[in-house]
């Protein structure tokens, strides 16, 4: 039992160390100039110090291997450092009618929202964008065999900040962007951006 206890304490220490390294290393994503604008002085200090927690590649790989298997790899800085004032949602249209995604349960809708967030943050990555949209469209074409073309709109909502809402009221700026079209043979074309207010 004594040996087992020592092994377990060692394992506990390693687990906690891994979590600390993952936690601080996740802040290094804020180091870019673009992200630094959104940080306060303390945030800039932490983001710039995060590199102290960088480990040699084999160690990083080992930590992430372990973290993936324990479901702890994504870090825990939820809704931080700031919350985006923009909400983007995808809308699928065919022949002027909206094709609703087939999800029925609120949890599935939340899961799709998570995928949507990923899509939004990689919207300028052409390869990434195409493969995701092709996959969604292919599934929708299967469910709607009568449809030949699907237009994918992005509905953008920009909310006033709390400070501006006090001065101007809680305004929401809405933009509808016809972003992409896809045909049954899975050809995807990015449309000339049309913006309607």
């Amino acid at each position, binding site marked *: 039992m004594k040996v087992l206890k020592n092994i377990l304490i060692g394992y506990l220490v390693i687990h906690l160390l891994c979590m600390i390294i993952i936690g601080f290393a996740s802040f290094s994503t804020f180091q870019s100039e673009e992200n630094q604008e959104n940080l306060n002085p303390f945030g800039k200090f932490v983001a710039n110090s995060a590199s102290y927690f960088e480990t040699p590649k084999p160690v990083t790989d080992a930590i992430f291997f372990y973290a993936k298997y324990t479901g702890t790899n994504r870090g825990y800085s939820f809704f931080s450092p700031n919350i985006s*004032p923009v909400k983007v949602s995808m809308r699928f249209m065919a022949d002027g009618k909206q094709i609703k995604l087939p999800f029925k349960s609120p*949890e599935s809708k939340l899961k799709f929202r998570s995928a949507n967030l990923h899509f939004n943050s990689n919207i300028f990555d052409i390869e990434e964008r195409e493969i995701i949209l092709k*996959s969604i469209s292919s599934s929708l074409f299967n469910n709607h065999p009568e449809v030949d073309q699907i237009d994918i709109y992005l509905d953008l909502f920009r909310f006033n900040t709390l400070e501006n809402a006090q001065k101007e009221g809680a305004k929401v700026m809405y933009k509808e962007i016809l972003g992409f079209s896809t045909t049954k043979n899975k050809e995807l074309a990015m449309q000339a951006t049309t913006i309607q207010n």
Partner: protein
Amino acid sequence: MKKTIDIFVFGKTKTLKKEWAIKAIALFSAINVLFIVPDLFYIFGEQGILQQAVNERYIFWYQPVLGWFADIFGYVGISYNATFLIFLAMYMLSLACLWFNFKRPVFAVLSWFIHFMFVNSTYLFSYGADYFVSFMLFMNILICAGYLFKKEHRGALYSFAIRFLQLHLCLVYFFAGIGKLLGTDWLDGNAIWMVINTYTSSTIADGSTAMVAYPIIFKILAWGTVILELLYPILIYSKQTRKVTLVLVLMLHAGIGIFMQFYIFAVLMMLLNIIAFGHYFKWKPSLQEETTKSKASSTKIVYS
């Protein structure tokens, strides 16, 4: 020092009953699946909304996915969707075995593995709650591992699992808190305003506009969240503050569930907190006083 660590990690005598914890984990994991039953094939199916070609871009070679087994089962004519159903049935069966105390260590590993594989197979659909379920099922392996040892050692091993969970939660909240301290939104209350606008229903968002004239409300809620998360590791262990901290954290998650509609995530975090620290409240039927024959329990020092 060594003795103190030994007592802290292995000598925890007051916890929620192991039986209660395992059953709660099994029940929650089953409900988690039942919540998405109408959409299972749109999420996991071969012709799902996000198919395997998309998923493969985000996972590493060492992460098991349904496709591995579907390829093998394909040789005997079993389709991808049928493979998924087989694993789903095995997952539910494993949870039932955990509930009924049948070969718990084996089924703890099996349920964790299948859930892990499901999460890997739907990378883009997976969010925080799914990863926490993975972690909870991993924790369940540590809890159930005690059954592999003699009865007199089980108390110490369960104590280890609960301390493991407690310390892990402390880091989770600490990093959640420190992350919020880096920006500006959580300091001026804008974060709560944005969360309400972008995550809640329009009825709640419309209601919040009436409070715009009182920004102090948003500041208090934002600062309250940051302080609670950041200081959770201290407050949850301090005798004077631990009960109120647990209640506040449960309220925070209830709020996330009700207002942001993150139902599964909210209940899951509440469950993890209750398993880790629920013994602070005297729910007599669910409390246990483990008698361990280890040296630790024979001392008078008790960390609760």
